[in-house]
């Protein structure tokens, strides 16, 4: 049995006089078919939130001193953290792939007087930037660059 929609979903401002049966959601919501990707995409919000706070911790530690830094880095070696970070990595890539596939069409054909490049070019640009930034970031963090 499908889940009920909000009881007022698609209800008219002046409902008709006959009794209606309440709206039902698609039986596939939330985890079947295409909905699965959507639901997971939204849930990555939790991971981004945690990642933001973890980044805060790292930077805070960096500002506090070597001691604090070491504590954080030690913690990061525990299996729990590594597991979470692996999951995060998958999530981030998933978000990127899904969002970048939608992004080009969300760009209006004209922004004020400016015409953005055609969709395939935007898409290529996004991927180039993604790979580029990731590469630079990796090289810096591993100490290869600078």
């Amino acid at each position, binding site marked *: 049995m499908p889940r009920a929609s*909000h009881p007022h979903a698609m209800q008219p401002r002046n409902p008709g006089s006959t009794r209606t049966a309440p709206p039902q959601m698609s039986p596939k919501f*939330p985890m079947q078919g295409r909905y699965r990707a959507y*639901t997971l*995409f*939204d*849930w*990555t*919000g*939790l*991971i*981004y*939130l*945690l*990642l*933001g*706070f*973890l*980044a*805060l911790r*790292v*930077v*805070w530690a*960096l*500002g506090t001193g*070597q001691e604090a*830094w*070491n504590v954080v*880095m030690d913690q*990061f*070696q525990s299996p729990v*953290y*590594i597991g*979470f*970070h*692996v999951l*995060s*990595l998958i999530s*981030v*890539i998933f*978000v*990127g792939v899904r*969002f970048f596939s939608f*992004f080009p069409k969300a760009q209006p054909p004209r922004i004020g007087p400016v015409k953005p490049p055609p969709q395939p070019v935007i898409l290529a640009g996004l991927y180039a*930037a*993604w790979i580029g*930034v*990731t*590469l*630079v*970031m*990796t090289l*810096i*963090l*591993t*100490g290869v660059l*600078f």
Partner: protein
Amino acid sequence: MKHLLLKLEPIIWLLFGQGILLGTLLLTGWVLVVGVLAPLGITPLLSFSDAHELAATLIGRVVLAALIALPLWKGAHHLRHVFIDLGGADRDATVAPLLYLIALAGSVAGVLAVIRL
């Protein structure tokens, strides 16, 4: 509150959008090295002093602030949607401000964190 939220919607959406876009660009390499490769000992990680030196540059501070704040907005906004999808639209007026306040607090802390580097 609802009214204020409505007024702020464009900014929140911008931050959220950048959370996905820039957030994803920055986080991929960050999580890869800091969270996975370095802890597993597969690659080295910058030493504390190198890291501090780099982070304290202007570009370093800006990038790190973005790295902290933007994902928070993406997270808050998406969790708000999760909550609505779970049937919580009627309580959105309470939940949404709460989530955005968390993101805001984190962002402020993030800015502080890069300032005190």
